């Protein structure tokens, strides 16, 4: 300001540009302090220590839409604030100001005539007299609308982000729930399959006086219900029924056929245990249920009756076969016989089918073996042209004869294992026989113990 006042040539040079600049400075100089106070880009007000408004500038009056007359000397600073602002002023702002003598950057809301509210930033300072006593409070008010808008925008974005996060979390939880449900469903299905599978096969073979029995069941797939079946059950005090077979197809439909077959044969055995009659009954049931309705389904089966002798030194077997490979008898002397039932037809294909019954006597040490074609159709080479076959089976069994039922089954279980991937079908093996006569004297080695 001094420099301007001492300008040596206020107008003498005739330089147009210099003259214009000076005019601006002159205008600034004419901007009185009063004008600066009233029209400043922020609000000013001064209050007595009790808050009564002593002075307020035009800018603030304009923001609030109020007249100077209704404000000065009539209202207190707190009266200009919203209810929330008033409360905050009373509990925080005023006590802090009295304590510190100044306070700055406090966000409050002021009432605007007509119902609006104006977000503001308030700074106040206490003016003291020469003795240090507080005289009045000077306050500046900044319009914080833009800042509030910005903060609200920030808040909104934050809420949106939180909402998105919550939704993502919920989606993740739902996916987890779905995964758990799927696992539970899978477990339930596996349980159901296991229960069904158990209903198709006996849990264990019953003890038959005078007979030794052994069985093995190979399931091609844990997730697929087996299509082979077997059973051994008492018919009366002296006779036992047995059967073993293979239904066509795989999966649930094969299981339904297996179930029908198993319970039909069991029921038929009690009605008339003559083997050919039981198979004839099964043939009628399957034909009526499937083939006659245009859905040809069938099974192969051997059904028989075994009657152990009272002295437990022999047993009589009568069996009939419906399209099934013949039973093998491993004799105590080492010979292997088959028990052919020629002409036995697939069960369930024709409305009436012939079944013939064969009979054999098992002496002590003889073992009868029934098997399904998973064994003989196992691949022994890279293609399906190399199948294990019946001749190989006979040779395998003969090489180990004589064999008790459990020995036969154990050896064949090992054989099945040796096929590896070549064994791709279910396989059922059932053997029973009359135990070999025990030597009456114990081996000498035992005497030496």
């Amino acid at each position, binding site marked *: 300001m001094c420099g301007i006042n001492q300008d040596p040539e206020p107008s003498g040079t005739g330089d147009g540009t210099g003259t214009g600049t000076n005019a601006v400075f002159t205008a600034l100089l004419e901007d009185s302090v009063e004008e600066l106070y009233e029209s400043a880009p922020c609000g000013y007000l001064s209050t007595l220590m009790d808050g009564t408004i002593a002075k307020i500038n035009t800018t603030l009056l304009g923001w609030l839409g109020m007249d100077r007359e209704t404000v000065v000397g009539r209202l207190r600073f707190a009266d200009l604030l919203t209810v929330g602002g008033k409360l905050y002023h009373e509990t925080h702002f005023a006590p802090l100001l009295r304590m510190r003598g100044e306070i700055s950057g406090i966000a409050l809301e002021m009432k605007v005539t007509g119902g609006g509210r104006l977000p503001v930033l308030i700074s106040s300072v206490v003016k003291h007299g020469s003795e240090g006593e507080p005289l009045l409070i000077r306050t500046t008010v900044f319009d914080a609308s833009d800042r509030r808008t910005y903060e609200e925008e920030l808040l909104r974005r934050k809420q949106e982000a939180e909402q998105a996060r919550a939704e993502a979390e919920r989606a993740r939880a739902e996916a987890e729930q779905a995964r758990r449900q799927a696992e539970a469903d899978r477990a339930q299905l596996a349980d159901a399959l296991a229960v069904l599978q158990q209903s198709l096969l006996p849990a264990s073979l019953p003890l038959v006086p005078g007979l030794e029995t052994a069985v093995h069941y190979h399931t091609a797939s844990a997730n697929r219900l087996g299509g082979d079946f077997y059973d051994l059950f008492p018919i009366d005090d002296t006779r036992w029924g047995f059967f073993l077979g*293979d239904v*066509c*197809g*795989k999966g649930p439909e094969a299981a339904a056929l297996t179930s029908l077959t198993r319970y039909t044969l069991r029921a038929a055995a009690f009605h008339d245990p003559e083997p050919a009659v039981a198979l004839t009954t099964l043939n009628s049931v399957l034909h009526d249920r499937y*083939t006659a309705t*245009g859905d*040809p*389904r*069938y099974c*192969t089966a051997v059904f028989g009756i075994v009657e152990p002798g009272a002295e437990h030194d022999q047993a009589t077997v009568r069996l009939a076969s*419906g*399209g*099934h*490979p013949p039973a093998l008898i491993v004799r105590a002397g080492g010979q292997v016989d088959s028990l052919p039932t020629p*002409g*036995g*037809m*697939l069960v369930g*294909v*024709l409305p009436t*089918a*012939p079944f013939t019954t064969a009979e054999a006597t098992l002496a002590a040490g003889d073992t009868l073996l029934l098997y399904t074609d998973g064994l003989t*159709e196992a691949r022994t080479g890279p293609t*399906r*042209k190399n*199948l294990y076959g019946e001749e190989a089976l006979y040779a395998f069994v003969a090489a180990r004869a004589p064999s008790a039922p459990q020995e036969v089954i154990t050896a064949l279980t090992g054989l099945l294992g040796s096929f590896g991937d070549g064994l791709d*079908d279910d396989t059922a093996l059932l053997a029973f026989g009359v135990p070999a006569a025990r030597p009456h004297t114990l081996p000498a080695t035992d005497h030496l113990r």
Partner: protein
Amino acid sequence: MSPLTITGRDTTTGPVVEVVGDLDYAHATALRQQVERLTLRPGQRLVVDLASLEFCDSSGITALLAARQHAQAAGADIVLSGVPTNTLRVLTIVGLDRVFTIRPDAATA
């Protein structure tokens, strides 16, 4: 495992269906569907030519039985021709050699 190819042709006595490859669980349905689409008239003879059949399991036998049923329903005959030794052995075990008419080859069928 070989893929299954089924080709059909018409003759004066009726349709001939030639089956090449494996007639197993995975492929038997194709034969069933192919045969069920055939229109057979009473007195006609459906020939299923198995000369190039490489493998036949129980599903394949089911498909052959379905073909037999389809022919019978139409009043037609069914003949299996060129049955490979392995399949003939299986058909004999299960008694179907007496259910199907079996001829050495499609020409004499």
